[in-house]
C-alpha cells in the first residue's frame, strides 16, 4: 500500500533562482526503504527538508496514505506521520533518553504532573519492540554517536512517525556502528515503517535499501530497484553528464611540473590522524605541483584544512612546511611569506565582515603601511583598489566587507592571498561563488604561481574542480586516503566518485590494499 507520495517538488533558491529541486517525484510503500543518492548539491538535503516541513517548496504536492499534507509546516508534517532525523543531532543533552522521547508531549499524572514512570515505561516498550540498544534512563550527553542516532529515531517513532526521513544518518558513525544501525533500519521496515535514507555512501545503499532514487542537479536521474543496481552503475548515473560535457570541453592540462618531478618538498604530512580511529595519513607535496584532496562532507576534509593551515594543532603526527615543523612556527612569518590560505569558511576566517574592504585586502600587508598613511589615506586606498581590481573586484575600498556579494567576497580573499608568490598555497573551496570568468582567472593564477615554484593543496568536495586543475588527486573517505592517482582527465570522475562514496566495486589505484 502506498504510504507517501511526493509529486513535482520544485524549489528555487536565492536571487539567482538556482533550481535546487526540479520537479522531483517519489513514492514510498509501507515497509519500503528508499535510498536517495546524489553528489553534493544534487538536491538531496533540500528534498529532505521539504518533506520534513522545514522548507516550503515553490510547487509540488505531498500525500500520506492518500491524504494531502500541507507543505512548509513542521507541525503538519509531524501530524501526518513524518519523522525527520537531521544530520546534526538535536537532542536535549541534559535530559535522559526517555525524557527526550516524551519531550513536549509528556505523559501526565494527576492531570498536570509529568509522570516520569509512564515516560520510562512507554520508552522501554518502544525500545523493546524495535530492538533499540538504548537505556531509557541514560543521560543523552553520556551517549555515543550510535546511541544518539538511535535515540533520535526512537523519538521520531514515539511521535507517531510512520515515515522516517534520515539525512546522512551514518555520517557520524564508524563502520561497525553503521552496520548495526542499518540492521536496526531493517527491523523498522519489518514493522511497516517507510524510510527515506539520504546518503553519500553507496555501499550502504545496497545493504539497506529496497529502491533507489538517483538525483542529479535537482532532478530525478533514475529510479532503480536495489537488487538490480551496483555501485559502479550508481556512480555513473550520479556523475553522468559531467563526464560527457567535460569530455567535449577537454580542459587544457594543468601546467604543473611534469612526470615524477624532482621539485623541493614544500608540504609534508607525516602520520597525521584526521578522524578518531582512522589510519594515519602521509602526504607529500612538491614545488610546482597542484594536489587536490577530495572528499564528501564528514570525511576529514575540514580537519585536513585546519591542520595544514595551522588553524588547529595536530594531536598526532607532524605537518612540515619546507621541512620545518608547522607547530611553533611564528604565525605571522608563516602567513606573510610562506603560505597563502584561502579558507572554506569565508565569513568566519576569510574576512572581517565589519571592517572595510581596504583593511581586509591589506590584512596580510600590515607592515607596509604606517601612521603617516593614516593622514593621507590615499596610498592605502590605492593599494587596496589595485589588488582588488587584479581579481575583477570593483568596489569602494572604504565600504564594509559585509556589503559585498558572495562572489566579490571570494574575489577579495583571492586578491589578498594570491597577490605575491608564496611557496605553499592552501586553497579550500576556492571556487565558491565565483563566476566562470573569475574561475578561469583563478585557474590561470594558480598555474602561474606553480610554474614559478609554488605548491598548491586544493581542498575541495567537487570532483570537477579537482580534475580541472590538479596534477594529482587524493580521495579521503572516513579520514583515510583511499585513492591516489595522477590526474588523467575527466574519465577518472566515476572512479573518484566511487572512492568518495566508499564503494568497493571500482578497482582503481587503491592505497593501503
Amino acid at each position, binding site marked *: 500500500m502506498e504510504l507517501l507520495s511526493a509529486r513535482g517538488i520544485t524549489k528555487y533558491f536565492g536571487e539567482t533562482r538556482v533550481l535546487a529541486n526540479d520537479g522531483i517525484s517519489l513514492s514510498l510503500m509501507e515497509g519500503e526503504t528508499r535510498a536517495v543518492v546524489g553528489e553534493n548539491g544534487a538536491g538531496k538535503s533540500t528534498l529532505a527538508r521539504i518533506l520534513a516541513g522545514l522548507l516550503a517548496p515553490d510547487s509540488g504536492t505531498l500525500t500520506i496514505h492518500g491524504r494531502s499534507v500541507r507543505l512548509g509546516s513542521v507541525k503538519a508534517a509531524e501530524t501526518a506521520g513524518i519523522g525527520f532525523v537531521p544530520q546534526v543531532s538535536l537532542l536535549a543533552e541534559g535530559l535522559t533518553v526517555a525524557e527526550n522521547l516524551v519531550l513536549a508531549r509528556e505523559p501526565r499524572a494527576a492531570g498536570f504532573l509529568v509522570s516520569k514512570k509512564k515516560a520510562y515505561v512507554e520508552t522501554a516498550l518502544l525500545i523493546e519492540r524495535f530492538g533499540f540498544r538504548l537505556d531509557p534512563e541514560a543521560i543523552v550527553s553520556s551517549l555515543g554517536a550510535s546511541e544518539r542516532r538511535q535515540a533520535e529515531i526512537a523519538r521520531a517513532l514515539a511521535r507517531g512517525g510512520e515515515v522516517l526521513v534520515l539525512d546522512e544518518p551514518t555520517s557520524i558513525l564508524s563502520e561497525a556502528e553503521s552496520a548495526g544501525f542499518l540492521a536496526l533500519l531493517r527491523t523498522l521496515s519489518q514493522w511497516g515503517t517507510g524510510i527515506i535514507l539520504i546518503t553519500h555512501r553507496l555501499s550502504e545503499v545496497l545493504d539497506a535499501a529496497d529502491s533507489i532514487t538517483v538525483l542529479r542537479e535537482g532532478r530525478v536521474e533514475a529510479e532503480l530497484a536495489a537488487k538490480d543496481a551496483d555501485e559502479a552503475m550508481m556512480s555513473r548515473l550520479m556523475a553522468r553528464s559531467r563526464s560527457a560535457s567535460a569530455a567535449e570541453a577537454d580542459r587544457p592540462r594543468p601546467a604543473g611540473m611534469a612526470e615524477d618531478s624532482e621539485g623541493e618538498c614544500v608540504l609534508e604530512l607525516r602520520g597525521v590522524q584526521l578522524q578518531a580511529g582512522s589510519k594515519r595519513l602521509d602526504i607529500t607535496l612538491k614545488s610546482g605541483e597542484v594536489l587536490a584532496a577530495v572528499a564528501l562532507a564528514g570525511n576529514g576534509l575540514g580537519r585536513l584544512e585546519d591542520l595544514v593551515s595551522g588553524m588547529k594543532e595536530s594531536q598526532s603526527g607532524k605537518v612540515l612546511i619546507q621541512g620545518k615543523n608547522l607547530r611553533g612556527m611564528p604565525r*605571522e612569518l608563516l602567513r606573510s611569506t610562506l603560505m597563502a590560505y584561502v579558507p572554506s569558511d569565508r565569513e568566519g576566517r576569510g574576512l572581517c565582515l565589519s571592517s572595510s574592504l581596504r583593511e581586509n585586502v591589506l590584512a596580510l600587508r600590515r607592515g607596509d603601511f604606517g601612521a603617516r598613511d593614516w593622514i593621507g589615506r590615499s596610498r592605502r586606498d590605492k593599494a587596496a583598489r589595485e589588488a582588488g581590481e587584479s581579481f575583477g573586484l570593483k568596489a*569602494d575600498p572604504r565600504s564594509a566587507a559585509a556589503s559585498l556579494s558572495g562572489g566579490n567576497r571570494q574575489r577579495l580573499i583571492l586578491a589578498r592571498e594570491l597577490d605575491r608568490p608564496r611557496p605553499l598555497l592552501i586553497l579550500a573551496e576556492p571556487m565558491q561563488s565565483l563566476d566562470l570568468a573569475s574561475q578561469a582567472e583563478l585557474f590561470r593564477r594558480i598555474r602561474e604561481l606553480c610554474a614559478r615554484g609554488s605548491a598548491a593543496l586544493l581542498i575541495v568536495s567537487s570532483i570537477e574542480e579537482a580534475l580541472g586543475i590538479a596534477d594529482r588527486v587524493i580521495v579521503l573517505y572516513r579520514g583515510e586516503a583511499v585513492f591516489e592517482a595522477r590526474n588523467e582527465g575527466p574519465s577518472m570522475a566515476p572512479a573518484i566518485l566511487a572512492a568518495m562514496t566508499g564503494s568497493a566495486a571500482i578497482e582503481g589505484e587503491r592505497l593501503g590494499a
Partner: protein
Amino acid sequence: MNAPAPRAGVMAWSRVLALGAAILIAIIYAFVASSDPREAMKAFFLSPFSSDYTFFSMLEYSGPLLICALGACVAFRAGAFNLGGEGQVSVGTLAAALAAGISSRLGLDPGLGIAFSILTAAAAGAFLAYLSAIAELKTGAQVMLTSFLVSQTALIVVDWAVGGPLREEGSNLLGMAPIDSVYRLPLLAPPSPLSLGFPLALALAALTILFTKGSRQGMEIRLLGKNPSFAWAVGISPKLGAAAMVLSGAMGGMAGSLLVLGQAGRAVKGMTGGVGWNGLAVALISGTDGLGAVPAALFFAWLDSGSKQASILSDLSPDASSVLVAIALFLITARRRGRR
C-alpha cells in the same frame, strides 16, 4: 556599485541625539524633583560655567576620566572587556604617592620625579591588567570576570594600605602624607585646581587615536577584536590582545597618578570615586574609536560638576548626575543594539 557606508556619521549623530534626549529627561526630572525647577536647572547646566574656578575644576576632573576612557577604548577594540578600571586607577594612586615619596628622599629633579610617579603608576595599573590578560592567554579565563575580581581586591588592599599602615601619623584624614609640592603637577590657573594633567590627557588622546587608527598594531588590535579567527588566519597573534589589555591597565594607573599629583596632592582612601567606572561609560558613549572620547569625557565632567553644584545651590540630589549618566548610557547603547 556599493554606496560608501555613512556609518560613522550616522553613529555620531545618533549619539548626539541620545545625549539630547538625556538632557530633556534631566529637565523633566528637575521639574518633578525640585521645588524651584528653574533655579535647579540653572544650577545644574550653567553653574560649571559661572566662574573660572568651577569651569577649570570641571576640566581638571575630565583629565583622569578621559584617560580611563581611552584605556577602556583600547581594551574594547581588542575584544577585551576590561572591567577593572577602578582598581587599576586605585593602584595607580598608591604607586604614584609612593614614587613621589621616593623622589623626595632621593631629591630628584621635579620634572623627573613627576615622570617617575606617572610611570610607576602606569606600571602598577599595567601589572593588574597583566594578571587578567595572562590568565586569559594561558587558561582561557574571561578578562571580563577576572579584571573585575582582581580590581575589587586591589581596591580593598589599597584602601587598607592607605588608611592603615601607610596612613600619615597624627592626621585626621584617612590618607598618606601629602607629597612634596615640587613633585606635584604644575597648576595652570591658580587658585583653580586645573593642572598640567588636563593637557597631558589631551595629548594622550591624540597619541591613542594615532595609535589605534594609524599604526600597524592598531589595525591588528582592531581586527583581533572584531574577528579573532580571522585574525589568527591572517597571522595576528592573540598576544596582541593581551598587550592591549596591559596598555589599558597602564592608562588606568596613569589616571590614578593624575588624581594624586593634581588637586589632592596625596593618596587618600577611596579617592578613585568611580572614575574608572565613569571612564567605562564614557568609552561606551564615545564608541571606542578614541576620537569621541574627548567630547564625551567633557560632557560627563560637565554633568558631574553640574550635579555637585546643583546639590549645593538648589534642592536637587547629588545623585542626579548618576541618574542622568545612566539614562544617557541606556539610550546610546539601546540605539546601537537596535542598529545591528
